[in-house]
């Protein structure tokens, strides 16, 4: 096709989409001059270009529409009929454009019908609003044109008159004839059109480049002192930037997928005799165009559904005491690497009874089982294949496209969809989808000797399970569960799920990857966790695509292929029974979690004052209430007999009173065999919040203040009270406690672990400086920053933990600085090498308790010295 023509078709199609939206707004707000100007300009541009490209049919139609719009612009009121005719005209223009796109010529036939309609309305409007004719000065010379006029062309006489009537004001017409000029002009010229294919090819190549970069990094990592390191680092940085840049070109505002909706809703409301308002929020939210393409149809379908089935007729609404106008609200926003899209209406909600009956009729559930299901569980049936409860098939829905298709589309892109419905109040769908599909961060795990990747987006946390620790795997018959913060987490062993022959006997030791899918939480037990890696998702071979627990595969940095676990698939394997049971209780929790990046469970309590205090829940061994009468006073200290030991009770300040009668709430902290209890007035709540200490405190025992639930809350430094309890216990009473916060340098190349560890370490009383490479760490040390302790990862690109420690010990001569190594590979050789380079301690990467213990040990050594 002619380049010019193709450009015209693309551009005009885009303009038309905009016109659709604007027109609907215009009908609702006919006095908005700005909207009208926009529409007029667009139609005008179409007309102008048509003439240039000799498309007479299109030109005539656009001209007729423009004339009518011109009337509106002159202040005539827009009637519903007029808007309908204009919309019909735009549809016709689209039809013609499609033919041009396909056949490079205008279709046969004419548009006399529409043009007649348009002209009739123009006439009506003009007659009802006849304005006084303006006086013409001068004489009109009759002129003759040598050919017949094209439709829409003006006679020379008219031109002459227009010319004479134009007020002599050179600025104004210039401004109106060039409405797009101005400051925006420069910007507009800075964008160019690129075909999607070009972008796709770029993306594929960048993905390959990322893989190759990873492979090179892997090779260089094995060769110490390679001269390739420097250039490779630069290559690596450039690659990362390139990747980001290309990803950006793929991002599009979600509004592009919404553009057609106002028009659809308007047509539907006319067709169905309902009054519908469509609200759209967050149209500028950007997401990958591949994702956008896949959700376009589901979104449209859901909005149609809401209009058709969800919203009642005005009469029904009034009878139900609701405003006659129904409302459909679409909103989109980013939330922690995901896009959340909500489609809500204030209609009648789902008909639980009918869904239940249909589910039973289709044999999805037995009658007895159905009786036990909650409403929310019944509502989920609408996502089952072939499920539609619409009784009458309208032209709007009931075309055999149901919510199962919506869900399939969303599943395909690793998203989730959830439904919430309240009878008579409304229905809302929440869709969560990843920002992009191409590159994801993944946790590489080991199961039965094979490696697998788990997308980090769904990983909530990692828990090390050991048979003799607090986190141990328990069994209910054959089902394994884990007690995690007062909840039972269903567990599934990856080797069992994948039917791998597990050489090792099933042990109760292992790493538990806690995964969240929608509102469902579960733990996947793996044999080992290696590291995180940015992986390029490649689709599974069509011969393997039926395996639901895999979403794709990828080539790792070392060149081997590994499978990517699909958390959605695993969730389905575990079964829906679990989901519903967990869903209800965790829903509220997720809302809170998603508000921040990483949340910590905090116990909020009061002690000594009305101001709330909080302490990370993970540090508390248990909450106790003891009979006040059992509290004994010995040597000026409060004690209580606890598990056959005497446990000291510690007051945070003198304001805290130990109760004389009734029950005394206590927070018990244990460290090995030693326990102590903090005396509190009352336990307020357990909440999930981001631990963001805003105001540091110089008050010993208080880390600082944070805003929790809108209230300034003191975060208690447990690390302060633990030693004071025992120093008081074993030594003289007047010995001062250590209140000085200790500075820690934390080195790990994985942002994931930095994020995970920092709050834990902060909670343990450290001021944490986190850096992502050994070089950064060395730079800080060389600049003379003082740290009390260094915690470093072993396995890092460029310079690993061993080399880092050697440099610190030898080159910087910091022989006394304690260094604790964190590693996923704890082997005797590694331990030996660690001793040689001067690590003070060597802790497995996911052993939080072990790390805290090691830190305490170092701290104690430091204090003793």
């Amino acid at each position, binding site marked *: 096709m002619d380049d010019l023509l193709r450009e015209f078709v693309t551009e005009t199609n885009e303009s038309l989409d905009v016109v659709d939206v604007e027109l609907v707004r215009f009908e609702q707000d006919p006095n908005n001059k700005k909207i009208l100007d926009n529409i007029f300009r667009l139609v005008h541009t179409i007309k102008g270009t048509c003439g240039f490209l000799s498309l007479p049919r299109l030109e005539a139609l656009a001209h007729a529409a423009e004339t009518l719009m011109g009337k509106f612009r002159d202040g005539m009121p827009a009637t519903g009929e007029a808007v309908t005719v204009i919309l019909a005209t735009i549809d016709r223009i689209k039809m013609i454009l499609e033919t041009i796109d396909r056949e490079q010529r205008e279709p046969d036939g004419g548009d006399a019908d529409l043009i007649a309609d348009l002209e009739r309305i123009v006439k009506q409007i003009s007659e009802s609003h006849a304005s006084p004719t303006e006086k013409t000065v001068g004489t009109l010379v009759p002129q003759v044109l040598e050919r017949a006029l094209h439709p829409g062309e003006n006679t020379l006489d008219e031109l002459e008159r227009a010319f004479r009537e134009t007020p002599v004001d050179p600025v104004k017409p210039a401004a109106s004839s060039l409405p797009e000029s101005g400051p925006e002009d420069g910007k507009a010229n800075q964008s160019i059109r690129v075909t999607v294919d070009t972008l796709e090819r770029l993306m594929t190549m960048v993905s390959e480049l990322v893989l190759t970069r990873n492979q090179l990094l892997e090779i260089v990592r094995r060769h110490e002192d390679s001269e390739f390191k420097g250039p490779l680092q630069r290559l690596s940085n450039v690659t990362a930037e390139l990747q980001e840049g290309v990803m950006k070109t793929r991002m599009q505002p979600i509004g592009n997928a919404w553009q057609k909706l106002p028009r659809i809703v308007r047509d539907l409301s006319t067709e169905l005799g309902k009054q519908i308002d469509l609200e759209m929020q967050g149209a500028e939210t950007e997401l990958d165009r591949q994702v956008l393409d896949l959700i376009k149809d589901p979104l449209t379908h859901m909005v149609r559904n809401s209009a058709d089935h969800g919203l009642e007729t005005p009469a029904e609404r009034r009878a139900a005491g609701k405003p006659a106008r129904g409302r459909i609200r679409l909103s989109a926003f980013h939330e922690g690497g995901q896009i959340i899209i909500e489609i809500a209406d204030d209609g009648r909600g789902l008909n639980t009874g009918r869904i239940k009956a249909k589910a039973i009729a289709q044999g999805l559930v037995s009658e007895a089982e159905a009786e036990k299901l909650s409403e929310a569980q019944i509502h989920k049936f609408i996502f089952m294949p072939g499920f539609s409860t619409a009784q009458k098939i309208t032209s709007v829905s009931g075309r055999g496209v149901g919510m199962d298709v919506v869900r399939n589309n969303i599943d395909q892109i690793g998203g989730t969809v959830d439904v919430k419905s309240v009878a008579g109040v409304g229905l809302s769908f929440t869709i969560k989808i990843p920002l992009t599909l191409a590159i994801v961060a993944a946790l590489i795990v080991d199961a039965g000797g094979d490696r697998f990747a788990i997308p980090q987006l769904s990983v909530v946390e990692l828990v090390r399970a050991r048979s003799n620790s607090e986190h141990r795997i328990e069994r209910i018959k054959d089902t394994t569960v884990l007690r995690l913060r007062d909840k039972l987490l269903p567990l599934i062993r990856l080797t069992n799920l994948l*039917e791998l022959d597990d050489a090792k006997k099933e042990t109760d030791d292992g790493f538990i990857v806690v995964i969240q899918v929608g509102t469902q939480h579960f733990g996947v037990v793996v044999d080992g966790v290696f590291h995180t890696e940015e992986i390029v998702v490649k689709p599974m*071979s069509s*011969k*393997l695509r039926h395996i639901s627990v895999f979403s794709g*595969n990828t080539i790792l940095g070392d060149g081997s292929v590994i*499978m990517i676990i699909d958390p959605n698939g695993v969730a389905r394997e575990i079964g829906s029974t679990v989901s519903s049971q967990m869903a209800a209780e965790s829903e509220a929790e997720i809302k809170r979690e998603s508000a921040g990046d990483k949340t910590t469970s905090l116990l909020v309590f009061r002690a000594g004052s009305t101001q709330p205090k909080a302490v990370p829940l993970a540090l508390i061994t248990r909450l106790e209430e003891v009979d006040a009468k059992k509290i004994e006073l010995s040597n000026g200290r409060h004690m209580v007999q606890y598990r056959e030991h005497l446990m000291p009770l510690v007051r945070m300040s003198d304001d805290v009173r130990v109760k004389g009668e009734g029950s005394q709430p206590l927070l018990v902290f244990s460290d090995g065999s030693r326990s102590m209890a903090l005396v509190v007035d009352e336990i307020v709540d357990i909440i999930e919040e981001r631990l963001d200490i805003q105001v540091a405190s110089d008050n010993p025992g208080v880390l600082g203040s944070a805003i929790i639930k809108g209230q300034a809350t003191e975060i208690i430094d447990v690390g302060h009270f633990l030693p004071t309890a025992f120093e008081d216990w074993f030594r003289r009473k007047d010995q001062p406690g250590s209140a000085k916060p200790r500075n820690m340098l934390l080195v790990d190349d994985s942002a994931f672990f930095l994020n995970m560890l920092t709050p834990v370490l902060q909670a343990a009383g450290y001021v944490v400086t986190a850096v992502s490479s050994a070089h950064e760490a060395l730079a800080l040390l060389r600049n003379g920053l003082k740290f009390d302790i260094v915690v470093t990862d072993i396995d890092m690109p460029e310079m690993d933990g061993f080399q880092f420690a050697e440099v610190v010990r030898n080159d910087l001569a910091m022989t006394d600085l304690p260094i604790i190594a964190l590693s996923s590979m704890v082997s005797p050789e590694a331990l030996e090498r660690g001793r040689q380079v001067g690590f003070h301690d060597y802790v497995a990467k996911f052993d939080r308790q072990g790390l805290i213990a090691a830190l305490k040990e170092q701290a104690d050594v430091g204090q003793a010295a």
Partner: protein
Amino acid sequence: MTETADEHLSEYVTATIGGQLFGLPILSVQDVFMPERLTRVPLSPPEIAGVLNLRGRIVTLIDMRRRLGLQGREQGAMPMAIGVESRGESYGLLIDGVGEVLKLDDRARETNPINLDPRLARVCAGIHRLDGQLLVVLDVERILDIGVSAAAA
């Protein structure tokens, strides 16, 4: 494509699988390689030996012995793989050994004997009589039709 005098001649890459000689139309063969660093795929059909990285592409390997219902390979025997492509995806067919390329006359190709093992007949597009042995012509598309497509939908 211009037709020449040898329009009736087809070229085959020959391979041995379980002692039997097979031929693959040369036009469907991409390359021949030694499979290395094979990753097994849990829960996959038994014919799928696994996947591997061949110059940046992920290749799905099909164990031809299993596909043809033959006995498993002896321990320690090094298989070879013939790379083929279908609908934009790369596959490797695991065979025991690869032989020479033969040019054979299509008119001499015979249809499958009716008593041919059905598992073989499924993927076999005819037989050539060679000196001293028979060559079974394999149909790549039929080999790749592993029968999960229905389940995958």
